[in-house]
């Protein structure tokens, strides 16, 4: 199990790719400090689709309340990384 574990950097890379594809934005523009709602124009539907994508990719059940706390890409990365760590720790 441990050898398949994703590093935080790998998770951030994958989440960045998912957002780039979903929002049709060049990955190079997606720096950690970018504000996802104000700058990227994400809305509630996009947040739901991102949560769905995270579930498919990482098997994570992200809570709507968690999503509402998110401001920047870095916030999303750490939310997913935290969820992933919790999930893999219990296995």
């Amino acid at each position, binding site marked *: 199990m441990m050898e398949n574990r994703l590093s935080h950097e790998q998770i951030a890379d994958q989440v960045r790719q998912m957002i780039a594809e979903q929002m049709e934005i060049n990955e190079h523009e997606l720096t950690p400090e970018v504000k996802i709602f104000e700058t990227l124009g994400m809305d509630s*539907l996009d947040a739901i*689709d991102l949560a769905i994508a995270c579930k498919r990719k990482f098997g994570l059940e992200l809570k709507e309340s968690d999503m509402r706390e998110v401001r920047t890409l870095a916030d999303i990365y750490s939310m997913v990384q935290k969820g992933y760590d919790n999930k893999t720790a219990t296995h």
Partner: protein
Amino acid sequence: MRTPRRVVVTGIGVVTPLGSTYEAFKAALFEGESGVRYHKEWQEASYGLKTRLAATVNDFDCGEIPRVHRRSMSRVAMLAYRATCDAIAHAGLTLSDLQNENTSICYGSTIGGPSVLEEYFAEAEMVKSYIEAANSTTFLRMMPHTAAANLAIALGIPGPIHATCTACAASTQAIGYGYEAIRQGKVDRVIAGGSEEMHRGIPAIFEVLGATSIKFNDTPDASPRPFDEKRDGIVAGEGAGTLILEEYEAARARGAHIYGELVGYYTNNSSSHMTNPAVDSLVRCIEAALRAADLTPAEVEYVNAHATGTDVGDAAESHALMKVFGGRIKVSSTKGHLGHLMGAAGVVETVASLAMLEHKMLLPTRNLEHPSANCAAIDYVMRNEHVPELKYIVKNSFAFGGINATLILKGI
């Protein structure tokens, strides 16, 4: 009592198997072209269908749509969007002219986005989860009012939406609602029309009922054959059409080009059978539309029929026309050129009728060679016919569910 307001058509947008501008569409119609095509891919994956014919819009380019709007659109909404943007430009209007609550959207389709419906339920069955099969826009892309709602959101129009989903009469009812709304002073402008995306389920449903053409797979442009003795059913099609309807005085004041006036509308239902047309209810519908327009049958030169090429439907409509107008009435169906565009049929055929009024030229029924013995002896238009006195056109649309709808158009 206040005089009811007059309603005119000031803009036209079409995306059809015969061309995707008003000018190209008109040219193809007057040249007698056919939009019906053989679909090789239906041979390879027939899904049980016997027909290989459909009137599809090939090389459809919707143009640029921002992602935030595109994510909730399936093909039916994209066709509608393209036709509507073209109609607005054609009318010489800008979006800011329409972004107010005095503009309504009346827009129809048969079942919204059938491809998305199919994908969603097939995926749900596969993964055994209605949750996992969906994303945030699944419903928005398949819902019956997807075309109308996407137009409102993408174009930023806050006025009332009326989404008609009455199958083959959907866009005729949409135009009718729009006409009534302006006439009664509820709004000043209406974006009216309908859209349909091709899905094999539609010809299949007609095929089950014995109403899809299956004998002309080797000669696609020889079907459908409305009113003809060899007719064997519909050829399903796709497309979209949008009319900009405006209150007459306002249209004139802004110097708009007027393509025609709507002077009457009526809709009823047969209350007798889901699929079999009832001649007496068709007669009542047409006669009520004439009364609404304050016209006698003798004042109408021509009827653009619903006639789809089915045995029962064409016969019933011809007998209804005979009863209302007598044998002198000139009649044709544009479905011989276009196939049956379902939710878009009524509006695209209304556009064809406006073109006939504009050029004082009647179009024949393509593929009508020998009027059928079970159709009434009315004056079937057999070739392009110049009618200098052409002033009024009656446009019929009928649909499963017993729905009848009749519009009356007047040339300017």
